């Protein structure tokens, strides 16, 4: 075996620590090839030290996985354990009950958030104070009104697709409000918004998305998944520039949007034959 053959075999063997016998024999006699082997071993031993930024969403993913009330995707069950497909009326009742519960929850959260923000506006001047008498532009629609609009649409939604779209709009309202508050608001308000945002996505949007009929999943969920990806990316950028005290709630929102995006994609993938 010559040096070229030895080195080629060294590079193509599974483990250069234990090369084929004929290569070992050549290495025992050839200083240059042993040097090549040692350099290769040095490279491979240090590849694991090449740094990678830490992943920040694993814990969030695990928490969601272990939360018993929210199936991420349906686990395969033995045939005898499978429930019969829900009848239309049962499904309607379920959707109605879930819709009412969500509407109630969102109304309460919306009013509470609205009160909190209104109180802040009345407490003193700040960047978000709007005086309709003096300002040239019309005042922005207050958060509570926007939330109640979404809430009303949600309560009126007849189908799972409509519910999912209403919840996606609600999530976008909350996301838009976050962008404003990240620059001007307190971390307490942002924490509250971030929690509500994560809850709307996790307990509302994703849960309801599972009820969307398979034939309509792609057309309904794909645009929402794309918007969640954009929201996640925009919030991550915002977090990079934001004050340290508001970074944590922004990261909660990034993780919630990414997880929501991944879950919607999994639901779409499930629906593909």
């Amino acid at each position: 075996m010559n040096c070229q053959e030895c080195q080629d075999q060294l590079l193509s063997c599974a483990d250069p620590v234990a090369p084929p016998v004929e290569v070992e024999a050549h290495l025992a006699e050839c200083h240059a090839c042993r040097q090549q082997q040692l350099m290769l071993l040095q490279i491979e031993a240090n590849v694991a030290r090449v740094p990678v930024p830490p992943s920040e969403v694993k814990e969030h993913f695990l928490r969601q996985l272990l939360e018993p009330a929210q199936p991420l995707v349906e686990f395969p069950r033995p045939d005898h354990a499978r429930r019969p497909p829900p009848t239309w009326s049962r499904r309607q009742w379920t959707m109605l009950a879930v819709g009412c519960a969500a509407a109630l929850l969102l109304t309460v959260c919306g009013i509470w958030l609205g009160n909190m923000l209104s109180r802040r506006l009345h407490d003193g001047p700040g960047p978000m104070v709007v005086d309709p008498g003096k300002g040239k532009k019309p005042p922005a629609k207050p958060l509570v009104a926007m939330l109640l609009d979404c809430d009303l649409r949600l309560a009126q939604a007849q189908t799972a697709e409509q519910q999912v779209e209403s919840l996606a709009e609600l999530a976008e309202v909350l996301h838009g409000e976050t962008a404003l508050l990240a620059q001007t608001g307190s971390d307490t308000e942002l924490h509250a918004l971030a929690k509500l945002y994560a809850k709307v996505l996790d307990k509302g949007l994703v849960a309801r998305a599972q009820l969307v009929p398979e034939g309509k999943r792609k057309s309904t969920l794909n645009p929402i998944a794309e918007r969640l990806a954009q929201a996640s990316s925009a919030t991550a950028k915002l977090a990079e520039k934001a004050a340290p005290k508001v970074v944590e709630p922004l990261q909660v929102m990034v993780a919630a949007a990414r997880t929501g995006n991944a879950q919607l994609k999994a639901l779409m993938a499930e629906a593909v034959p």
Partner: protein
Amino acid sequence: MVAKAQQGERPAFAVLVEAYWDRLYRWLYHVTHDRHTAEDLTQESFLKALGALDSFQVGTNFQAWLFRIAHNTLVNATRAGRRNKQAFPEQLPAFSQGPLELAMTREAMQHLTRAVGRLPHEFRAAFLLRVEEDLSFREIADVLGTTEDTARWRVFKARKKLLEVLSPHLEPEVS
């Protein structure tokens, strides 16, 4: 553990997530050079794995199966135009400690980081599956959807390229 997860035991699947998340994320980061993309793909891969657990054959290599799902997810995402090719990131966390007998200088580690990052995508993916994940050439071929010979050739090319680039910065001591 996989068998328990197949029975629908979420804690068992959580153990698998705990065991493989960092490795899968690390490989995807090396392949994509983007943290957010790697995290998204990792999440998506685990969700797909969870949904397809009944198709996994107990007794085969779960890691190779999971990485194959991840590779398919990456390929689909790339086809859909969601992932753009990323430049190699210049700012990375500090290096960790390695085995003393094969340790590299800080400068050599920087060269290694850059050289691995600049390997052609398909060579890098195969090389890291061999060196970091200890997969056989057959398993690498399964993950990447290619033949065993091609997997071996990609690892060969990656090693050759790394040696060319890095040998001026290495100081092996041969007795």
